């Protein structure tokens, strides 16, 4: 069983990419440099995208690259740069509860891994070779899932308006006066 698994080239791709993904995910949660943490998230999501291609989900992989690596990371980098306190000493980025936190995350991993192995065992992904074409996804979006699709669009609009409303600074009375006189 194991020898057969190792004889497939695609599994070696999975191993290399999976190790890279996990190492960079580990660096995301341990790096003491904010910008490095965000850039390691790029590597992690790149690995996730490769895994999606291995699972013949090309469109989702492209969306991950476009939306996450293209847009969300830029947002994060802006957030990091704006919220960096200009004065005072650099405070530690982690709290002192590392051991209990590691214990909890190990328990979570053990439960998830055990249930995965116990439920699916060595079930092969049989018809993995054929890609899901974009037409299928498009028909699902405007067919059966048209209402959730519209709702998600509305949520994005609401998030856009809400983000502006929350983050914009209220003008002081003096500035209000200055604006009115222009």
């Amino acid at each position: 069983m194991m020898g057969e698994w190792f004889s497939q080239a695609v599994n070696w791709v999975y191993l290399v990419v999976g190790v890279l993904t996990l190492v960079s995910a580990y660096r995301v949660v341990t790096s003491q440099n904010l910008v490095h943490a965000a850039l390691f998230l790029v590597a992690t999501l790149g690995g996730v995208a490769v895994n999606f291609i291995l699972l013949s989900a090309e469109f989702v992989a492209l969306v991950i690259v476009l939306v996450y690596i293209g847009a969300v990371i830029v947002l994060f980098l802006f957030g990091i740069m704006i919220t960096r306190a200009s004065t005072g000493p650099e405070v530690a980025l982690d709290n002192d509860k590392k051991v209990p936190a590691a214990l909890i995350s190990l328990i979570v991993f053990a439960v998830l891994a055990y249930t995965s192995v116990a439920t699916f065992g060595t079930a092969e992904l049989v018809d993995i070779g054929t890609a899901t074409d974009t037409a299928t996804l498009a028909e699902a979006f405007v067919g059966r899932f048209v209402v959730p699709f519209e709702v998600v669009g509305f949520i994005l609009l609401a998030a856009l308006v809400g983000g502006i409303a929350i983050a914009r600074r209220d003008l002081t009375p003096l500035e209000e006066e200055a604006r009115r006189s222009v």
Partner: protein
Amino acid sequence: MIATQFLILAAALFSLGVYGLLVRRNAVLVLLSVELMLAAVNINLVVFEAMWRTSEAIGQVFSLFVIAVAAAEVGIGLSIILMIFRNRQSANVDELDLMRW
């Protein structure tokens, strides 16, 4: 390829996200950890789609929904962090204890 290999990768990503969520003090890094957990969930959805191959690719459709909602969440979350930083000159979640019992 077997399904379990991807499920275990997703489980490891998720538990790393849980660790970061519990340990990090900077609010932006907490959001980064949430992104790790969402990526793990997306892997699971795509694996199950690859396993059962529904005619409408439901697993992939739902992973795209998750991506869209996550993008909205990051936008709102970062603007809230920005406002907190503007009021308190700090993005440290340990200092946000106003509503703590």
